[in-house]
């Protein structure tokens, strides 16, 4: 049953997802061929710098927009499938509430992971041209010293953190929507309120923990050397992952309870 649910969920969102990421890959490829490959790094002219800055911010904006659309797809599918008219079909299938929840969690994670992979692929595609790697190799030792590790390793860590945060983002989204539907009169509004309130609480708690563990980025961050910076980064990331897991576990428990006991379709 779980497999069937996931299959149908993926199938019904596939068209829009593939279209979106197909466009992103096409834009990435043409960016590499039409822009990046023509850059000449031998002379650092102001024109070169400003064109790179412009291109980078456009790319960043595009990547963020696609990520946002993916998130929206996940959120809308969860809401529409379970809590609107379609819910009458979904909730009368011979599947348990837990199966529905996990089907949505797994399909959400699959969307997000694919999204992260495509984003990573687009970034790699843009920066792996011969001219770029040659230019980078000149400043590589400096960057490595500054970060305390090679840039590629740093990127890999970022990627892993991104994948893990996908999981918590999916649960958080479902948590907010499920809480919202407890208030039949203003379901969407209450979902948004749940998002901000829970976000605020998590922010406050993690700030407190950082202060407690002396991980708060103080004024002397700039005078840290590479080694220390890397170390700081590691502990901060470990802490935030730990917080993320704890929050996700709590949110999961809440969604699980709501799905099992509090389903009241209008």
């Amino acid at each position, binding site marked *: *049953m779980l497999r*069937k649910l996931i299959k*149908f969920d993926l199938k*019904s969102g596939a068209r829009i997802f593939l279209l979106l990421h197909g466009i992103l890959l096409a834009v990435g490829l043409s960016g590499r061929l039409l822009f990046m490959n023509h850059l000449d790094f031998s002379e650092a002219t102001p024109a070169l710098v400003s064109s790179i800055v412009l291109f980078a911010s456009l790319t960043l904006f595009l990547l963020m927009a696609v990520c946002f659309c993916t998130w929206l797809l996940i959120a809308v599918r969860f809401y529409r499938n379970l809590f609107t*008219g*379609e*819910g*009458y*079909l979904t*909730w*009368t*299938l*011979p*599947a*348990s509430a837990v*199966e529905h929840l996990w089907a949505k969690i797994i399909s959400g994670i699959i969307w997000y992971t694919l999204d992260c992979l495509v984003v990573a692929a687009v970034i790699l595609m843009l920066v792996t041209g011969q001219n770029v790697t040659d230019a980078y190799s000149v400043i590589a030792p400096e960057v490595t010293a500054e970060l305390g590790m090679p840039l590629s390793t740093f990127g890999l860590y970022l990627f892993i953190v991104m994948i893990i945060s996908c999981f918590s983002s999916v649960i958080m989204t479902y948590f907010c929507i499920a809480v919202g539907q407890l208030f039949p009169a203003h379901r969407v509004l209450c979902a948004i309120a749940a998002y901000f309130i829970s976000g605020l609480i998590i922010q406050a708690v993690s700030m407190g923990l950082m202060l407690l563990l002396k991980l708060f980025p103080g004024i002397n961050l700039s005078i840290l050397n590479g080694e220390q910076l890397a170390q700081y980064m590691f502990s901060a990331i470990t802490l935030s992952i730990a917080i993320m897991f704890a929050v996700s576990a709590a949110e999961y428990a809440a969604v699980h309870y709501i799905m099992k*006991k*509090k*389903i*009241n*379709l209008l």
Partner: protein
Amino acid sequence: MSPILECRNLTKKYGGSYALSGLNLTLERGEIIGLLGPNGSGKSSLIKLAAGVLQPTAGEILLSGKAPGAETKRFVSYLPDRSYLGRQMRVSEAVDYYNTFYDNFRPERASGMLDSLEIDRRARLSSLSKGTLEKVQLILVMSRDADLYLLDEPIGGVDPAARDYILQTILTNYNENATVLLSTHLISDIENILDRVLFLRGGQLALNASVDEIRTEYGKSVDTLFREVFKC
């Protein structure tokens, strides 16, 4: 064998008002039962509770002895009183969906009915007229070999010709061990196909009798009796 549907002190509250209050009811297998009552008398709530898309505030509802859940949804076939299929789905995809998820779905039966109505399988549900969409939904629901069919206002929004088709569809497809519970306010149209009628008033059972009992006892049709009982 436990009764197909049993309510014990079943209560459903929305905010401050009661949709059902302390309902006790037992339905046997093999009957077509009309659920009648004015608007807001709790008809739809009772059906939704049985379908498992609402949770009771108090009391319990049992289907074949079990609380609504994955197990009961296997043998309960539910037609909501609104459109509930993804608008972007094609007719063929909706059939496929039912066939995938319900073991007791009979695709050949659905095919036969779709053919007799000349409904295009490639059509998107959003392109169908309201009446046709309701027929497609009913066809899907009635193509399952269920023990209990819950039909919420199956003939509400369609013209009299379509109404006859829908009643024929119900009569043709239900088997003698199955129970059909259908809510409606168009009593006179369906009186002849019912074994039994339930009158709901203010979330409570006002009458539970067989159609011929009512006619023998009161010498009048269920429709006439209904108008008298619920006179404003």
